[in-house]
């Protein structure tokens, strides 16, 4: 496996860890590697900051109260 593929595999694993999708055993192995290998820690840190960055920058829209009101009225008018 080349360096690039190794790196991508590590990124994939770190992302699964951040998504809480790793098995307990895989999580333990990864955390052990992170503790001993600064390169692993660097990947974890970058991926974590990527998540925070995206979440903090995405503009979240709010539904208008008029729309909710209109939905409520329609449900009342047309009960199934």
């Amino acid at each position, binding site marked *: 496996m080349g360096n690039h593929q190794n790196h991508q595999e590590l*990124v994939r694993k770190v992302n699964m860890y951040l998504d809480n*999708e790793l098995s307990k055993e895989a999580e333990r192995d990864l955390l052990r590697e992170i503790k001993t290998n600064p390169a692993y820690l660097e990947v974890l840190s970058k991926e974590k*900051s*990527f998540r925070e960055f*995206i979440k903090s920058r995405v503009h979240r*829209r709010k*539904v208008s109260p008029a*729309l909710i009101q209109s939905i409520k009225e329609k449900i009342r008018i047309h009960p199934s």
Partner: protein
Amino acid sequence: MFVMADNNLEEQYMKVFDEEFYPHADALFNFAFNLTYNESDASDLVQETYLKAFRFIDKYIQGTNAKAWLFKILKNAFINQYRKESKRPTKVDFEEIVSYHDEEEPNRYSGHIDLREEIYQNMMGDEVTVAINALPVDFRTVILLCDIEGFTYEEISKIIDIPIGTVRSRLHRARNMLKESLKEYAQARGFKDKRS
């Protein structure tokens, strides 16, 4: 399931709407907007979602995952809308809307990007939103469902009807595409990759 007497059903349905369904209206609208890029279409999708939720409320098990249930309805409504607009006579599912493979393209996306760099920190929300919206719909969807709405892989798999393994690989690729797109944006603004 709803097991109360008929005269209490409407009252109970409204309680479910108030307590379990309406609190997700902003998240649904946000998702709908990111699928359609249009406020009016997003409003129509949200309205259709709630009307369908009411029509099929007997299929909903009270106290379960209302958010995932509503998102699945919205996703299906979006597909139906797409089918109507494209006037295609044959069945179209979510997979057919997309034009990208889920297979990895290992050499295309480097993933080497450090968002702690000052240039990225100065990026505004609009630039990130534009980068997300520029992703093909299937990749955009998994990013929104996982990174913005916080759904698990299993929930995403159920919402968009794809295997968990596909959710995993699609997310990996979507994040790499997003990093690449943000990097290109930063480079266009004069940021130099320090690795070269």
